């Protein structure tokens, strides 16, 4: 019976990791569309989660996001992921304008059951970086969702514009 529950938990962990990583993919696409990072005509409409979602048709961006989501899925299965941050920076000045922060809480019991002796190391396509924080940001908390194994909280920080203060 123990093995049955263990296998059930492993499958659920994998499924949850897949759901959350897929969500990140769609979230990244939505942010790129809504914040005007890429032009509107480069996005195509699809149906997902019962809503019309916009996905980029640029091959480079698509491959980038798919590589990203596959790596995130691995890390989520291992329970090593604490947070995923999408940073929008100015191309000219390199200044951080917006910081879309997805913080993840993982159920450690399920992860311990599912992971036995998995040795994880960061692949060579990922390097260490600074956190790209914004000084004195304006913060807006958005909706969170929970798969009973992974809980994702969303928060966006953006630069405090002088005009807003006036």
């Amino acid at each position, binding site marked *: 019976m123990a093995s049955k529950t263990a296998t059930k938990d492993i499958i659920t962990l994998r499924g949850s990791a897949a759901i959350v990583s897929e969500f990140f993919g769609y979230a990244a696409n939505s942010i790129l569309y809504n914040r005007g990072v890429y032009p509107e005509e480069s996005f195509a409409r699809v149906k997902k989660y019962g809503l019309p979602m916009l996905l980029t048709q640029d091959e480079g961006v698509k491959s980038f996001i798919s590589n990203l989501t596959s790596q995130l899925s691995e890390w989520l299965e291992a329970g090593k992921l604490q947070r995923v941050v999408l940073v929008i920076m100015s191309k000219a000045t390199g200044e951080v304008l917006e910081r879309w*922060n997805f913080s993840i809480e993982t159920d450690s019991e399920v992860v311990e059951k599912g992971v036995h002796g998995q040795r994880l190391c960061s692949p060579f396509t990922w390097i*260490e970086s600074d956190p790209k924080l914004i000084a004195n940001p304006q*913060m807006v908390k958005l909706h969170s969702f929970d798969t009973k194994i992974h809980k994702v909280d969303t*928060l966006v*920080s953006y630069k405090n514009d002088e005009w807003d203060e006036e």
Partner: protein
Amino acid sequence: MILRTPPPRKRRADSQPPEDVNNNNAQSPSSNRELLVYEDLPVPEYSHDHSIPITSDQMLCTYQCRQMVKSEFFDALSSAEKQVHDYQSKFGALNEDLSNAEQELAAAKGREQMLQEQLRKEVDFSQEQLRKQIHSFSELESLQQLKPKKASLLEEKLSILSESIDREKNRLQNELLQMRSESKLSVSRISADLERMECKATNAEKESALLREQLEELKKRLDECMQEKFELEKKSSIRSPEVPSQDTNLLLKHLQEELRNYESEVREARKLKASHEDIELLKEKLYEEKSRRERTELDLLKLSDLQLNVKRLEDELCTWKSVVREIPGVSSADDILPKFAALQKEVVDGMMRAGDAQARMKEIQVSLDAAILDKQNAETEAAMAKERAESYKAEIKQLESVLGLITEERDRLKDVVKELKERTNLDGGTESVSGTIVQELEASLAKKENYVTELENSLLEKKEINSRQQNEIKLLNERLANEARRVKMLEREGDRLRSEISLLESKLGHGDFSSANTKVLRMVNTLAVDNEAKQTIEALQNELQKQRKSCRLLKNLKNSHVSKMDLSKPVQCGFLLYSFSDAGTHVDSYIAGKIKQLKEQIATLEKREERYKTVFAERISVFRRACCELFGYKIVMDDHQRPDGIPVTRFTLHSIYALSDDEKLQFEYESGNANIVVNDYTSQPEISRQVDIFIRKMNSIPAFTANLTVESFNKRTLS
């Protein structure tokens, strides 16, 4: 010790034999325990076999004696019944007292609860009042906070107004200056006009003087001409008065007409001149009037603007005056700023005082709560003391009543004793009987006294129980108060923790992390790099294709021209051949050069590869030998293909303490998981047992190998 032997079985079934079941006899635990009925039979039947005949005469009593005993018995019975009745009544009274005490206790508890509720209501009321006061304080604070804002707003308005007033003043001054300058200009113009007029007048006078002089001259000439004419006429009349000359008359007439014409012309000229002068004067006047009219119109427009400005300034002045009037202690605009500063200071002081007052109020609240609790406690203690006093009083009354009853009984018994004594005096023979009766009565008295003491003891016990209960109630109240205080503290801590949690959540949401257990990574292969790489790749590919095309063209050209070469025309063809062969040799040399380079590269790479291989072989052999030395197993790795065709890596371990070469362990390694392969050695019972324990149950191959190593080492060393 009375031995009770069961009777012969009369009431039980005959089939069952009688058994000797005795309470004092031990029975075997395994025997059947059957239920036997005991029957108390009259003494003679239970007696032993030998019976003593008892004479009936000895058992007979006298009738009198029996009657006396009976009467005494009945008396004693009645008295005992009375006593029982009394004791029952006393018991009932005590029960009633106890129930009363319980009711009083319940009533006291109810009163206590009511008092508590009242106090709670009072506390709530006081808290509401405090809250209202705090609310009013907060409103005052907000008003005071608003005051500096209003003061700042008013200051801003003041500054703006002062600036506008200054601007207006400047503008008005400028206008004044302009007006003055204009007036000066107009004055100068008017003076210039005056001078011009004066000049004209002087010129006109001069002209008139000249004309008068001319007129006088003309008159003189006329007079001279008239004189000459008269003289001529005289002369003519003297010379020939006979010959009247028509010519001279005509001349005269002509001259006269000319004179008249001249005079009329002169008059017309004068008139014209006068009219010209008038016209010029009028023109100048008109011009002046026009200019004046324009000036007045401009001044009128300016006047309306000035009037509006004046009105606005008056309104501002009125508002300023009203502001000055509203602000106490201010008489002029200069006093406003220091007054505002003073007001701000007052506001700050007021806020500080409000803070102090709030702190004091909180202290007072705390002390009020403490006082309320103390009051509560005192009230409960007072109520409990009252109850105790009442209970003591009731007990005293009870005891007094008991005492009264006992004295009554005593008196009655004394009377009975007296009567008996009298009876004994009357009947001397029954002294012994009365003595016994007295003894019995005394015994009953003693019993009653004992009973009374027992009742008193029970009363004391109940009192003690009551006091203990009241103490417990006190303790519970104190505990209740402590728990309430703890609850408040916990609520405050909870609020503080909630605020801390919200602060930490905001920090976490912002992106704070601990660098000790968190790594921040980003993807290297960004889109820009990808794009650049793609672009370079595409460019290289295009170049490669172009190069290939050019190579093919050159080859085709070379081949086609070499094949089409005509030997009959050696010169031209030779020339052509030379030229194409040049190109071909160029291509060939280029290609040969490339090939050489590539071959050299290949050679270097092959050398490098061999060097790497040797180095790797050395290192791996060192590693393998070290592993063997450290872990005690020679490991051989080879690739194997499973029956289903999947290639898999197989490791064969041979322990250095193995007694034979057949003692080999085999493991299959596939995608991070190692599985043991069953062979002859592992199918041995000892080894298979170890495999079951360490690998199957505990899922640890290192433990299995280590255990095997230790066992082999032990075997070796022992052998």
